[in-house]
């Protein structure tokens, strides 16, 4: 594999990770909001009720599929590129993508403080990769 080829491989893995993990995060967040506070549920019904509710949620199953896609993209990315590039690049882009997706799909109130937090973390993670 030559240099350009390897870089192209690495960045397509990064793109796949960002897309899949944002989809997964949004679906999992929606699923867990539908399930409700797991600690309260645990106290009321025990671990089996919690597990059953979580595993039986369609959004959870779809979220896991998306996360599995992201995970295998990460394995590929790690075998093609440096961990110090792949992990921070995918992570920092995912922070920004998630802030946008959470606002649109989860109707979260992403105020200035949260935007700043997402951008600071994304910038910080990028610097960690330098």
């Amino acid at each position, binding site marked *: 594999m030559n240099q350009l080829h390897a870089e192209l491989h690495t960045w397509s893995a990064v793109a796949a990770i960002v897309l899949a993990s944002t989809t997964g*995060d*949004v679906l*999992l*967040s*929606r699923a*867990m*909001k*539908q*399930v*409700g*506070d*797991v*600690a309260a549920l645990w106290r009321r019904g025990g671990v089996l009720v919690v597990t059953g509710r*979580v595993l039986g949620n369609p959004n959870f199953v779809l979220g896991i599929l998306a996360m599995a896609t992201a995970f*295998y993209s990460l*394995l*590929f990315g*790690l*075998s*093609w590129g440096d*961990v110090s590039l792949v*992990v*921070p690049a995918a*992570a920092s882009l995912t*922070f920004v993508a*998630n*802030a946008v997706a*959470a*606002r649109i799909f*989860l*109707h*979260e*109130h*992403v*105020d200035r*403080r*949260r935007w*700043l*937090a*997402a*951008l*600071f*973390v994304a*910038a*910080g*993670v*990028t*610097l*960690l*990769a*330098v």
Partner: protein
Amino acid sequence: MSLRKYLVLLGVAVFSAIGDSLLSRGMKAAGNLSLRHVSEMILAVLHPGVALGILFLLAFFACYLAALSWADLTYVLPATSLSYVLVALIARFFLHENVSLTRWLGILLVAAGVGFVTQGPALTHRPRRVEEIPEPVSMRPQP
């Protein structure tokens, strides 16, 4: 926010940092993967370093789901980004990598982001469940 909830957030950060580090070391030992050898790719998860990393990532996932059950996605993600700082520290003290000035600056920025978001509310939008009485329109965050 109770102490228990902060501990769950800390668990998310610690478990994912250790899991990622183990996974990265294991995958390097497993060698280059190729799309042509799917069986090799699947067998890679049996490598001891990778398997242990996956165990830690499972613990991370349990904490992550618990956190998402009572907090917004845009709260949980920045709040748990402390894991990147931890990864840098692991790289510095266990893998003996050199942590440059830019990396320390990166650590500072991540920490600032964590500080920002944890000062705000954890939950801003509660999806309505069937048994709940609808809240007045004025209470909902305006777009």
